[in-house]
């Protein structure tokens, strides 16, 4: 990197906006006080998404009611329909459902292959619905775990997690992980 250093040193990060920094701290503290049940979102647009996420929780509760785990593809499709281009992942742990939405709609999001990942760790089961190629981080009791599923040409799911990579089933520390591609509904 030596020869590049003078070149890269020319890049100067613009000064921080102190009022935005103060606002970020204030909002983070609101989220901190309300953790883990509630979340206060960031900017004006995010308030809309917070409301949307709440709607999604109601929606998913309705969708999930009376349905079995093998209906994951349908659940995901329902939420995609509710939030076109915004759905990033649905994370279910115990009775809690976390619907993760993109702040800005991106038509490309929903073109990727859908994947279901089940993580079992320390007696808790976390169910993740997301897309191939998208990293999802989940807070386990043992610490956060980030996974990136990739659907192969053969329909298998390769899971990347840190230095680990495995197909379909694997184990990371104390967590067992199972990943399957969902068929589009």
């Amino acid at each position: 990197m030596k020869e590049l250093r003078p070149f890269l040193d020319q890049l100067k990060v613009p000064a921080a906006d102190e009022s935005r920094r103060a606002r970020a701290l204030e909002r983070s503290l609101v989220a901190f006080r309300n953790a883990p049940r509630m979340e206060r979102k960031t900017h004006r647009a995010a308030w809309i998404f917070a409301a949307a996420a709440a709607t999604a929780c109601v929606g998913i509760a309705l969708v999930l009611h009376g349905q079995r785990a093998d209906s994951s593809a349908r659940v995901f499709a329902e939420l995609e329909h509710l939030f076109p281009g915004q759905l990033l992942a649905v994370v279910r742990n115990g009775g809690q459902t976390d619907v993760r939405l993109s702040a800005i709609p991106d038509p490309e999001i929903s073109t990727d292959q859908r994947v279901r990942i089940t993580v079992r760790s320390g007696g808790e089961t976390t169910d993740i619905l997301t897309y191939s190629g998208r990293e999802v981080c989940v807070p386990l009791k043992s610490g956060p775990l980030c996974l990136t599923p990739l659907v192969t040409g053969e329909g298998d799911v390769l899971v990347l997690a840190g230095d680990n990579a495995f197909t379909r089933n694997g184990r990371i520390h104390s967590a067992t992980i199972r990943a399957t591609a969902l068929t589009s509904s």
Partner: protein
Amino acid sequence: MPASDDDLSPLVHLAGRGDEAAFSELFRRYYERLRAFAWRNVFDSQAAEDIVQETFIRTARQMHALRDGRAFEGWLFRITANLSRDHLRSRVSHEKKIAAAAMESPGRQSELSPQVELALQSLPAAQREAVALVYYEGCNHADAARRLGCAEATISWRIMLAKRALKKFLKP
């Protein structure tokens, strides 16, 4: 530009138990570093600040789940990197917008180095993240790998590719 801070475990532990002062201290320690990291990925001041704010909000929500203080820093950078990628992914015609913004805001040019910025923008997001961590954050490849959640060899490979690409900008 330390690659890693001193042991954060006590602070992380306190914050995990709901101590606001500890969380605020973590915010104070990492806000600027994360903002710089995000900016070097997205080259948009407001977006970088939004990304860091969202990083801390997500962190605040999940502090209680983090048991290992040593994982905290990597966690923050990984969330920031993911949000930066999301931001870039959602931007339509990113290069065009940057070019348009540069033309519309001549003042912006004076505070940046267009050539370096363009050079870094030309890199794929993964390589840019690696350069931001290894060069600007002062991480070694192993630290950068931990923060981005990939193998050390992957970082070395990305840096090698980035160097190759950036050298083209040095040629007259």
